[in-house]
């Protein structure tokens, strides 16, 4: 048995290093992480991505801040609505604003987005009325908006299922573009963004989607928000290598970006989308960020993580650092920040009043939605239900509508 050799620990870069940091909550993100705007509000440089940052107009930078502040205010309002019994559940995004606004603002109208269920910030960048997002959580719809209007797909609750839909959609784009080119049509080139998290990265569908994307060179950007916690399980349990490194195994580029740096996230996503749209294939972006709040309003993070960790991450807050930058550079004045606050409150009021006025659903809509074409069993059961309900007419107190 003496000839049997185990892999030697500590060989850098071989993937055999059993001691290597896995990119967990407390570990160093590593030198490979792209960061332009640090927590101190100072803009650094990067040989590739600084050029993207330089293209940003002050108006866009202010827009990033306004978006992030708006969606954070929205998040607070939705959490309050849940606490007040208006929503069954809420999934807060606080802490992940830069990852979502930066990437969402890098997309173009013709791109198509597949979110998981926490991408309220991306929804904002796609002009989805945020009040619509609450229908799912209020229990009146399993969707809530028309995905074809803003190319922003419905939330998907079975984790990672949408990563395959993304690749399939991208394969459709490829075929459409081939057809358009053959017919001399000048449609803008499009790509897909697939959002998922560090927890979902363990799902088999993520693996299959990356295999398919690589095989067909599909125009898709995999955008993984590593927020460090899959409910109560840290990233270390999901992966022993930094997530972005997995792209290497599939044969396409992987980039880790500071997910709390909206400028870097925007730059990296713009680069990845150009890469995909131009036919150079998929990219994996790992946005290194942190879920500052609970997984959902039903979660209790005090049971599985230290408050010191949360405090440390609050020091890397995405809004604070952009505010510092805008103030230091004289790109925004007090009036701007006041206006942002007013706009946020206005949005919150809109979301609250819309949510409270949302009409209750009717089970007839559920019957109507099962199939696109007429179906005898559904028709029969609906007919039974109508007859059954009609039996209650006149029973004022107990009557069914």
């Amino acid at each position: 048995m003496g000839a049997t050799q185990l892999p030697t620990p500590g060989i850098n870069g071989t993937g055999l290093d059993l001691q290597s940091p896995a990119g967990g909550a407390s570990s160093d993100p590593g030198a490979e992480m792209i960061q332009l705007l640090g927590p101190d509000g100072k803009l650094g440089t990067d040989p590739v991505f600084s050029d993207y940052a330089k293209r940003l107009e002050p108006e866009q930078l202010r827009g990033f801040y306004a978006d992030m502040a708006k969606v954070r205010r929205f998040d607070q309002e939705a959490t309050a609505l849940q606490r007040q019994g208006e929503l069954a559940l809420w999934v807060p995004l606080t802490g992940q604003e830069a990852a979502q606004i930066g990437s969402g603002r890098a997309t173009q109208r013709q791109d198509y987005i597949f979110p998981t269920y926490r991408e309220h910030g991306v929804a904002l960048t796609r002009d989805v009325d945020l009040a619509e997002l609450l229908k799912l959580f209020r229990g009146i719809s399993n969707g809530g908006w028309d995905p074809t209007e803003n190319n922003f797909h419905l939330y998907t609750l079975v984790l990672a299922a949408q990563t395959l839909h993304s690749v399939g959609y991208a394969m459709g784009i490829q075929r459409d573009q081939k057809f358009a080119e053959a017919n001399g049509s000048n449609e803008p080139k499009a790509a897909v963004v697939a959002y998922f998290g560090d927890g979902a990265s363990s799902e088999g569908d993520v693996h299959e989607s990356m295999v398919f994307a690589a095989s067909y060179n599909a125009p898709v950007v995999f955008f993984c928000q590593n927020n460090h916690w899959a409910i109560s399980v840290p990233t270390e349990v999901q992966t022993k290598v930094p997530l972005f490194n997995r792209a290497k195994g599939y044969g396409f580029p992987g980039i880790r970006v500071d997910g709390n740096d909206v400028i870097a996230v925007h730059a990296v996503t713009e680069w990845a989308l150009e890469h995909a749209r131009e036919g150079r294939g998929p990219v994996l972006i790992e946005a290194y960020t942190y879920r500052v709040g609970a997984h959902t309003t039903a979660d209790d993070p005090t049971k599985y993580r230290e408050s010191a960790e949360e405090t440390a991450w609050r020091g890397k807050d995405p809004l604070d650092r952009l505010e510092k930058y805008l103030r230091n550079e004289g790109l925004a004045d007090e009036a701007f920040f006041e206006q942002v606050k007013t706009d946020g409150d206005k949005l919150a009021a809109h979301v609250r009043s819309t949510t409270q006025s949302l009409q209750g659903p009717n089970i007839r809509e559920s019957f109507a939605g099962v199939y696109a074409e007429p179906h005898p069993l559904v028709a029969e059961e609906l007919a039974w239900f109508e007859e059954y309900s009609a039996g209650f007419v006149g029973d004022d107190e107990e009557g069914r509508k």
Partner: protein
Amino acid sequence: MTTMTIAKAINEGLRASLTNNPKSLLMGEDIGPLGGVYRVTDGLIRDFGADRVVDTPLAESGIVGTAIGLALRGYRPICEIQFDGFVFPGFNQITTQLAKMHSRSGGKLTVPVVIRIPYGGGIGSIEHHSESPEALFAHTAGLRIITPSNAHDAYWMIQQAVDCTDPVIFFEPKRRYWLKGEVDTESPGPASDPFQAHVLREGSDATIVAYGPLVPVALAAAAAAEEDGHSVEVIDLRSISPIDFDTVTASVKRTGRLIVAHEAPTFGGIGGEIAARISERAFLHLEAPVIRVGGFHMPYPVAKVEEDYLPDIDKILEALDRSLAY
């Protein structure tokens, strides 16, 4: 009229769909140059190219999941699952995503995906290659499930599946792939509605309902019963979801007796659903309980004993005797 096998009829049906609908495309494992392990897609990649006849990585969830994405982009993907027992890695995508997409979008999204699955036993094959999982899909609202038993139906039903706006699981009776029949490629004739059951043989003493691979067995059993002086009606269900209960009910009202035969285990199966519905719709017409003939409550057994497992003429005749003796 052209004579062809069921496999060839599906091949020609797919060819017609690819020709008539530029948004349709085939996806699956080994369906390209090989033409599929059963050669059902033989020659199609040559005529339609690799963008429309797509050899996929070996991943069933990947096949179904990407097909959903293609459908959302306006395409009509036709997926091949290589064998019945290998659909389960794709089960999540089929049941939680494909079946629910139209419903959860409030009718705004449609996902016209077809999933072809060769199913059933009787071919002496190894584990996972002989199963009949149709009840698992029939229990899932949002899916439609059809299965042809002859070449003419196969030719038309695959095209109707592609044309359907809802997702369709298309179960292909693999042990009948080489069964020849007349196909009218000009007109579907009585096959114009894929969700309608067909009375293949009229009778007055009892009704046998079967589908897919057991239809020829049911017809043979009815012919044998005739020699004993029993007039037996045979219905080819054709559609497993929805089920054409009107045709079955009308038949039972005439005959008073019903036997349902399928290869899948009887427990929790399609036969039980038909028995329950018929007892509600035709209780006073029944002369005997509805009797099911099907697989046992066990994993599909090894090939050397599948003969004992599968419904055959004798098992159907035994059920018929029980029904008639009631």
